[in-house]
Every structure is written in C-alpha cells, then in structure tokens.
C-alpha cells in the first residue's frame, strides 16, 4: 500500500574512515547558523556545530539522540533551490550549509477525551477536519526526517484505517517538519498520535492473561510470598536468588 516515494532525499554523507591515533588536523567546514558564518568540524552534526560555535542551546535540544523531535532544522545548500529538513542531532553539516533551527512549531492540539471517542473515520472528521483538505502533494513525506510515509497515514486517516495510521506513524517524533511544509495546514503528527491512541485503546486485541494477573493481584494472591521474602534474612534471599531457574 505504500506509494513510491517521489521525494529526492539528500544522500547521507559517510563518516570518513581513519586509522586509530592517526587523527591529523581536523577538516573544517563553513556553515551559516541563522545567517552567521562559522568554521566547524566537517564531521559534526548540526547540533554539535551549533555548540562548537559557542551557542548555549535552550530551545532546540532535547534527547539529542533522535527520539524527542526538539531539534527540527531547515537548511539550504549553495546553488540549490531546495529547502531541506533534518534533525540537528542526527544530520551532519556540509560545507556551505545555511541552517536555522525551529524553536517551536505552531500547532493546535484539540482537546478530547479518548474514552468518549469511537475508532472510526468520523472521529478524524470531528477532531481534525483539515485532514480532508489533503491535496496529496507528498510534501510531508519529503520533509520527514524519519523517512515515514506521512502522506500515506494521512490518507489512511481519511479512510478510517486506524491500524495503518498507527503502523505508519509509529516511529513519529512529533518534530513538526511535516506540519510546517503542509500546504493544507494539517498537523500530521497529532493525527498520527490520535490514530495510535485509538488503536491501542480500542483495536488492539485484549490479553486474557493480563486480565487474569490483575485479578490475582487484586485478590492479594502474592501477599504471603511477599511477606516471606520481606522477613527472610539476606543470606537466605540470596540463596533463593542464585538457585532460581531461568526461562
């Protein structure tokens, strides 16, 4: 079901291979941070480069490993009309790069009560009606630093295919780069989040064993053993631990 990506992704620059302790003088690159020129190590990430240049980041850094989406960045390359997108923590600088971080993405987050929603297309119509303004331009997919099929999950939301919304948006970091590129003004990452929550709550098959275990805990089935362990001398507990079998 995934459409072929028409987006032209910039090829990833490979880390240079060097032998140990043969680290000759650092190769540098010139980058323009919000228009100001800086010399930075050529193998730095954008985040590394910003800090190398002397900036103390307040907005624009979170987990620093590609999970939180705090460091959305847009940039252009010399002689190239395209606007590129990436996460500052995982994108490497290139000579001549002109970059700017996005300190926050203006987006509305409608208030809803997940307990009162139905897992169907009408929910998307009600909460995110703008989803249906999608013109299938694929700009969101092109902008996604995770290479997700963003437009496909928006289309899935329009069909009420919640499982596909969940599956295709699962790895979304909510960085917001899709939303700022969208000509239909959709906030894709919030749509994905709603889809995932609807799936987890309503459509994911129930675990019978989980239900059973919760009942056992409520009936205080493990009380006696907990008390035994608690009153046990350390040496005896230790023996129990090292003698236990492993699955």
């Amino acid at each position, binding site marked *: 079901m995934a459409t072929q990506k028409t987006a032209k992704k910039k090829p*990833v620059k*490979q*880390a240079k*291979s060097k*032998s*140990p*302790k043969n*680290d000759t003088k650092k190769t540098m690159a010139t980058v323009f941070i919000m228009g100001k020129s800086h010399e930075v190590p050529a193998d730095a*990430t954008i985040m*590394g480069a910003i800090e190398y*240049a*002397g900036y*103390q*980041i*307040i907005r624009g*850094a*979170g*987990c620093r*490993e*590609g*999970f*939180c989406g*705090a460091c959305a960045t847009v940039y252009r390359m010399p002689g190239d009309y395209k606007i590129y997108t990436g996460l500052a923590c*995982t994108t490497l600088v290139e000579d001549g790069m002109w970059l700017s971080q996005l300190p926050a993405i203006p987006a509305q*987050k409608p*208030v*809803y009560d*997940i307990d009162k929603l139905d897992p169907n297309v009408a929910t998307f119509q009600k909460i995110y009606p703008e989803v249906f303004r999608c013109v299938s331009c694929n700009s969101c997919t092109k902008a996604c630093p995770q290479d997700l099929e963003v437009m496909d999950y928006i289309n899935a939301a329009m069909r009420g295919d919640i499982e596909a919304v*969940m599956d295709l948006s*699962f*790895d979304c*970091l*909510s960085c917001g780069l899709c939303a700022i590129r969208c000509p239909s003004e959709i906030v894709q990452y919030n749509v994905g*989040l709603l889809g*995932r*929550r609807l*799936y*987890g*709550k309503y459509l*994911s*098959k129930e*675990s*019978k*064993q*989980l239900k059973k*275990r919760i009942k056992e*805990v409520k009936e205080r089935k*493990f009380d006696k*053993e*907990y008390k035994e*362990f*608690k009153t046990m001398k350390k040496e005896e*507990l*230790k023996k*129990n*631990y*090292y003698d*236990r*079998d492993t*699955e």
Partner: protein
Amino acid sequence: MYPEYMRPSLEKVAQTRNKRFELEKSGKPVFPPMNAEEREEVLNKFHPDYKPAARRKIRIGPNKDEHITTEVADMLESHSRIKPEFFDLTKPDYETDILIIGGGGAGCAAAILAMQKGAKSIISTKLRLGDANSMMSQGGMQAAVTAQDSPTRHYLDAMGGGHFDNKPDLVRALTEDGPEVVKWLEDLGVVWDKLEDGSLQVLHGGGTSRKRMHSCRDYTGAIIMRTLMDKVRNHPDKITCLEFMPIVELLLDSKGQCAGGVLYNLETEEYFTVKAKATIIATGGYGRLHIRGFDTTNHYGATGDGLVMAYRAGAKLLYMDSVQYHPTGSVFPEQIAGFLITEKIRGAGGQPLNKHGELFVFPREPRDVESSAFIRECLEKNNGIETPSGRLGVWLDSPLIEMIQGEGYINKQFPAMHRQFIRYGIDITKESMLVYPSLHYQNGGIEINDKCETNIPGLYVAGEATGGAHGRNRLMGNSVLDYNVFGRRAGIFASDYIKSVKISALTLNHITDYDDELKKAKIKTDLITPVLLPSYTPEDVRKRQLTACYEGTLR
C-alpha cells in the same frame, strides 16, 4: 561505514556466528552466568564506582559525612541561584493544589492521577513537556504478566540485581503494580507489541529469570511518553504546563512543610513563586553531569536539579554512591558516541564479543556486572577494538538476531537502532555494532516510602529522582515501570494529603541556612545550582566570554 582496519575483526565475528547460533539454539546459556563471588570480583576491580576517586565525603546537609559520588558531592556543596531576601513570599505569583516539578513520565503520570482525584496541578518543566529520559527508553518495561512469571519472582530478580540493598516495600510496590500499569497504559492508548492472539510479546532483559520485557518496537518510551503528554494536554482545566520554566528552589512553610517552589523563566530570566499544598519532585536523573568523564545516554536536561533542591530543603538521599553505566553505549561512529543501544538487542539474542569474535560474558548479566565485564575485556585483557578517535569497544552482534528470530525482525522490532546506524553506512542486520558502557542512570536518589513521601511533609518524589527501589543497580525495564508506578502513587497520595493540610507562612530560610552551613564547613565554591543545562562550549570560545558580571543568566 567501519574503517578498513576493523575488517579482520569483523570477519572473525562473522566466522564464529554459525557456531554461536548453534549454541543459542541449544537452549543452554551461551556463556556461563557468574556466581556471587565472580560478580563481586569483577565489580570491585572494574566498575567505575569502585575507583578511589569515584566517591568522597559530603561535608554538609542531611547526608553529612557519607561517602557519595564525587560529582554529586560537588554539586550539592554549592550556592543557590537566588537570594531569599529578594522575594516577597506573602504574594505568591501562582497558587495550586500540587506543584509537579518535571514534565517527564513520572510528572505526567502524577498529574493525570491527581487530576482524576480532583486536584489541580502545575507541571513546571525546564525544557518542553516530555523532554526527559522517559522519552528515550527503547527496550521496554518489565511487568510480571505471563503464567510462568509472578510479581514475587520479579521482586526476587530486582532484589538480586540491586545486590539486596533495595527497600523491600518499594520493590513490592514496583513489582505488584506492574500488571496494572500495563493495562492502564493500554487503556490510555499505548500500543504494546503483541502476538496474534492478543497476548503481550515478552523478552528477557539482563538479570531477569522470566521473559517480562514489554515493548513498543524500540520506541517504547516515545510511545508511552507521547500518550501521557496527550492525556495531560487534554485536561487544561486541571493541569497547567509551564515549559522552559524550571523550579530552582523549594518553598517551605513555617511548620517545615513543603509548600511549592521558585520558578525561573529560562528565556526572560524572571523568577516567580508558586504556592502549593503539596509538591512532587519528578526531575529525573543526572547523566549530563558526565560522572567520571563518561558519555551519557541521557537527555539534555538530566542535571540532577531535584536532588540539590530537595537536599537544601533537608530531604535525605539514599544510595547516592551508586551510578549506573549501561553496558551498550555506542562508540562508533564518533557522532553517536554514548548513545543508547537498547538492551532489547541482547534480549532478542544479540551477543557481546571481543575482537576475536569470541563470547566473554553471559549476554544478560545485571547491568553493572555486564558493564564491568566489558571494561575488563577492553582494559585488562586487551581484547577491545579501538576506534579512530581512540575509544575502546566490544562488538554487539546484531546480525545473529536475524538468524535467531527470522529475517526482517530487526527492521520490525528495532527501527530506531537501524536508523541510527544506517545514517552512517552501517547496516546492523549485516554488521555488528561497537559498544562500551555509557553513563545511564542514577541508581540512588531522594529517599521515599511506598507512598512516595519523603522526610519533609508535603514533599513527594517519583521516578529516577528517588532512591531505594533499585538498590545499587537497577535492572533493565524497571525504570519505565518505576516512573509509572511511583508517578501514579505520588499523584494519588499527594491528592489525599492536600485535603487536610494547612499551609502557613512561606519561607526560604533553608536557603540562607544552607549557605551558612557551607561557610561553617569552610567550603569555597563558585558553583551555582541547580545546574539546569550542561555547557558544551569549547574552551577557546569560553576564554573569549569575558563579560565581568552576569545577573541571572545561565553562564
């Protein structure tokens, strides 16, 4: 892409793979697990905590004369950012039922439960809501759900992993609430990895005797955190989120009860006071203090702020001598040095190997033991692999996972790990990763009981900022569980507490008193805390930052 000189070692890894696959299939441990004596020996000789300079005596405060982690002692023996006399405490800028300090997993869970019990809360967070280690956990959450498992077995595993130093009541709360937390999160909309019939997919973690790691691919924390955040944001009438507004000191009242805190707006550099009937510290850990010079897996704001605020107010700390190094931090390429490589990799069958492609340790020892064995292999046995920048590491054989679990497993179960490496031309379905221990978790913290209460009335703590649940070494998957279990409990018990508490006149006298204690102990320091943000400004830039006097800024 790995440099050419690493090729011969990688070939050895490939050559031994079939044999190791047979070993794994046999069902027996692929390497003999260590007994109690062997564990003790490797820890004593190689764990960074056991180096003489790793700990020192703290000279002031509730834990005076105790030996704790050196960097933490330095942080605690410091000056406040504020001068109490500048504040008019008779007119607080904000008033609320519960002040929650920290917008990670524990903070959000607390706010949700408090909201459901009718309490209003303010979440103060230094960065954005959800900018927390909770967001970054990859592998999963432990909870004893399967028929062959039980909460008491989970208890035993956690006690053994923590060297039996854990507080029993906390471990009971942690393990007994586990199954309920799985359900609670699913009802909020968390998408757990499941099998066809709806049963939860479980894997092993280090030090577990039953498979009980529940996951959401390798974005477990991201899925849980975003679900909790969405829930929080759906209740603006009850929960107010203040972002880029950390609390920098606690407020007490004349009866010694905790009564809120002092807010600092990171961007406008203004201070505000918050009066609250109860306060919950959920500020997480301290990885960004880079203890022992280690890289860290932690988020940008993990600077142990809650510890120092609570300590100045008189809260007792527990096990602050113990630091967790995650065995598998990335060491190559340099750009991702220190980044977390989930323990789920070893849970799914990934094996650590030396430069000869040989196993040297059971892949799933508790973290401190596993890390120490990696360090021994590199430093004593000289069997590590050196990176171009001079780091040492051992291989973590991921292609083996595809042989054990079937082709396509990595792409399906480890999308984040695959992405992390393919950016640099390393395909982890075909080649191993290079790893070394990375600073990961604060094992100790502010001492609590199973209601998240501290020795200060009205002060609750939840999540990584607490001490006791994990003894001196936390097991994999128990921190995701921890922030949910104790976040929820803090929300519940703080909501009960506020029904009867009366707050009297607010005070910041404890700040003045603490500074007097510093003087009396003849401690000379320029350090101002909470640290708030680490600085990665290079030395040459720093030398040119010559402004003579700053008022209230970060530098």
